[in-house]
C-alpha cells in the first residue's frame, strides 16, 4: 500500500511515495520511500516530537555529515496527517545489524575484520565529536557492519545534537553514563565516550561490563535494578580489586573466554573507563585513545594457518589453541607502529583511518608470500641489500622481504623485520 504525499522541495511540489514498513523502533517506524527519483528510508515518529527536537533535527539536516559512516538525516518532512519524520539514505543491503552479531546469529568473517569495524566506528565518532556534536542515544540498535570488510554504518542519527543541549531522549540505561542516568549532567562528549566503551566491550566480549554475578541478587531486573547496576553502584565485571560482580560461569561463558584472550593493554583500557572513569568523566578514554588501543590490537593480530585461531603474540612459535608451529611473521615497522603482516590487513599509520597506506595481500600462487598493495597517492621505493631499488605506484603490489627498507612517499620510512 503506497501512500502519496506532496512535499515542498526547492520551491516545487515533489511527490513523496511512502511504501512498505522496513523497521520499527521505540521512537518511530521506518518506511521505504521514493522521493526526487531516489529511494530513501523515511522515519515517522510515533509521538509528535517537541519543537526543540524538530528544530535540532532541522539543524542536523543542514549540517554536512562528518563521515560517510553515518546514515545522515537529509530532510525533515511534515505529512498531511500531522505525522512528523525525516528522510535518510537506505542502508546498503550488504550490511548486517550488530544486533544479529551480538545475538550470535551472524559473525564477522574473522576477528581481524571485527577489529576493523571497531576502528571504523571509533573513527566516525571522532569526526562527529570534532564537529562539536555528540551522538547521545548510542546503543546497539543503530549499528551495522559489513561482515567481510569491517565497514560500518551508523543510523538513528536523529538524536545527534551539540554537547550539553537539552532534548527529551537521554538514551538507554544500559549504555548511559552514570551522571546522565542520575540526571546530574546532560549528554555530552564524555557520556558519548562512556557509551562507546560499553558498545566496544559488548562487541569484543559479548557481554555487558556491569552485568555479572550481581544480577543474581535480583529476582527481576527492572528499571530499579538497572538504576542500581548502571548508575548508583556500578561495578565492573573485571574490577581488579572488587570481585563481587565477576561474570557467572555457565551463563557468561563467552565473556570469560573472550576477556581472557584480550591483550593486556585492551583490558587496561576498559578498566580505566569502567573503574576510574565511572564518575570521573575526564578519566574516560577519548576517541583518539580508543583508536590507538584498537589499532595496536589490530596490528598485533595474527592467525594460525592450521586451525584459524587468532591471537596477538607474534613471537610465540606455537599456536596457543592447537599447538601447530607458527612460522615467524614478518613485521612492518613504520614510525611508532609495528604491524604483524597478515593477509587482508590494512596498514594504518598515525591513526589516519581515511588514508591507509595500503593493504596486505597474499600471492595467488604461493599464499605464504605476502605483499602490500599501494592505496596511497605516493610512489613507494623499496630497498633490499645488493638489489636495485624498485618503485611501486598506486595500485601496484610490493612483495615483502625480510630486512627490506621501504620509503613511503616523502617522509615515511619503514622496514621489514
Amino acid at each position, binding site marked *: 500500500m503506497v501512500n502519496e504525499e506532496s512535499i515542498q522541495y526547492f*520551491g*516545487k511540489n515533489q511527490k513523496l511515495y511512502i511504501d512498505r514498513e522496513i523497521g520499527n523502533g521505540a521512537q518511530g517506524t521506518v518506511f521505504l520511500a521514493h522521493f526526487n527519483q531516489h529511494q530513501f528510508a523515511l522515519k515517522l515518529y510515533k509521538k509528535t516530537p517537541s519543537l526543540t527536537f524538530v528544530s535540532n533535527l532541522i539543524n542536523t*539536516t543542514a*549540517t*554536512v555529515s562528518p563521515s560517510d559512516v553515518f546514515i545522515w538525516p*537529509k*530532510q525533515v518532512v511534515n505529512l498531511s496527517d500531522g505525522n512528523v519524520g525525516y528522510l535518510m539514505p537506505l542502508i546498503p543491503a550488504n550490511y548486517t545489524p550488530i544486533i544479529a552479531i551480538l545475538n550470535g546469529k551472524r559473525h564477522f568473517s574473522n576477528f581481524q575484520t571485527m577489529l576493523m569495524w571497531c576502528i571504523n566506528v571509533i573513527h566516525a565518532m571522532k569526526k562527529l565529536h570534532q564537529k562539536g556534536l555528540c551522538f547521545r542515544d548510542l546503543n546497539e540498535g543503530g549499528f551495522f557492519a559489513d561482515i567481510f570488510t569491517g565497514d560500518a554504518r551508523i543510523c538513528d542519527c536523529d538524536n545527534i545534537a551539540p554537547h550539553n543541549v537539552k532534548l527529551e531522549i537521554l538514551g538507554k540505561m544500559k549504555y548511559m553514563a552514570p551522571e546522565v542516568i542520575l540526571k546530574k549532567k546532560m549528554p555530552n562528549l564524555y557520556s558519548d565516550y562512556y557509551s562507546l566503551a560499553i558498545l566496544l566491550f559488548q562487541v569484543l566480549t559479548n557481554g555487558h561490563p556491569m552485568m555479572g554475578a550481581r544480577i543474581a541478587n535480583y529476582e527481576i531486573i527492572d528499571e530499579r535494578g538497572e538504576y542500581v547496576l548502571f548508575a548508583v553502584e556500578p561495578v565492573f565485571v573485571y574490577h581488579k580489586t572488587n570481585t563481587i560482580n565477576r561474570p557467572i560461569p555457565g551463563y557468561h561463558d563467552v565473556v570469560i573466554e573472550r576477556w581472557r584472550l584480550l591483550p593486556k593493554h585492551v583490558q587496561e583500557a576498559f578498566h580505566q573507563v569502567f573503574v576510574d572513569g565511572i564518575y570521573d568523566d575526564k578519566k574516560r578514554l577519548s576517541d583518539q585513545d580508543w583508536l590507538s588501543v584498537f589499532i595496536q590490537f589490530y596490528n598485533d593480530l595474527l592467525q594460525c594457518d592450521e586451525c584459524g585461531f587468532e591471537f596477538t603474540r607474534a613471537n610465540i612459535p606455537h599456536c596457543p589453541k592447537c599447538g601447530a608451529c607458527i612460522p615467524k611473521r614478518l613485521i612492518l615497522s613504520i614510525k611508532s607502529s609495528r604491524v604483524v603482516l597478515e593477509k587482508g590487513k590494512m596498514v594504518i599509520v598515525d591513526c589516519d583511518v581515511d588514508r591507509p597506506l595500503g593493504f596486505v595481500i597474499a600471492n595467488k600462487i604461493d599464499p605464504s608470500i605476502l605483499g602490500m598493495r599501494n592505496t596511497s597517492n605516493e610512489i613507494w621505493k623499496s630497498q633490499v641489500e645488493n638489489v636495485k631499488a624498485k618503485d611501486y605506484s598506486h595500485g601496484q603490489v610490493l612483495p615483502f622481504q625480510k630486512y627490506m627498507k621501504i620509503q613511503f612517499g616523502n617522509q615515511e620510512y619503514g622496514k621489514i623485520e
Partner: protein
Amino acid sequence: MRGTVFNHTATGYKHLSIHQDCQDYSSSFIDDECAILIVADGHGDPIHARSALGAKFASQAAYELLLREKDQDQEYLSKKINFLKLKIVERWKSLVDDDVACNSLNQEEKYTPYGTTLLACLITEKLVLSVQIGDGVIAVQTDGKTTFLEHEDSIDGRTHSLCEHSAEEYFTHQLFDSEMLQGVCMASDGLTALFDSEQIFKSSILNPLFQAASPDLLPKYQDLHSFIDAVANLKGNGDDVSIAVFLRNGIGQSSN
C-alpha cells in the same frame, strides 16, 4: 537601484569531457532604477544541438522585455504578465528565426534545437517580478527568512522549454513587494544537484550569501565562483552550473 548583482556559469564535466560548449547562460544587470537577473539552461542533448545559442537568445529576450517594465507598479504588471510571457517567447523565436536564416538550417521543427529553460527576475524599489519556464530554483531572502519561489516545471519528468508549442502557458511567475527584500538568488538545476538536500544548499550557499552583506563582499564572490568551477568538475550530475545573485545591501550601484 540600491544593491549589487553578479552571476557566474561553469561548464559541467559532462560537457567538458565531450568537448561540448557550455549550455548554460547567465547574466545580471543593475542601474539606477532596477536590477535584472537571468539564468537559462540549454538542454544540451542531440535533439537540442543549438541550445547553447538558445540559452543566450532567451537571456536577451528576457532582458529586453523586463527592462521596459522597470517603472511599472504591481497592479499594472499583474494584469500585463501573461502578455509579457507571450512577448518573451515571441522575441526569443524571432532571434532563433534570424539565426536559422543566417545558417540555412532545416526549417522544420526549427525551434526545437534551441530548446532552453529560462529564469528571469526584475527587481525595482517597488517590486520583484520573476518568470520561469523549466527547472532551476529562485530563492528569495525577505526580512531574514529564505524561501524558494513556488514553481511547477515538468510533465512526466521532462522539463518545460521555450521551444514547446504554446510555451507561454508553461511559465510560472511571482510578483510581490520588494520593501523587505534582502536578496535574490537564481540557480540552474546543475547547482542544486550538487547538494544532498535543500537544507544543505541553504546553509552552504544561501545563508552565507544573504547574510554576508558587507563591504568585503567581493572576495566572497570570487570564492563562490571558484567553488562553482571546482564542483562543476567533480560532483552532481555533470551538468553546467549557473548562479545569478542580487544583494540589497551591497557595496554600491555597480552595473555590468
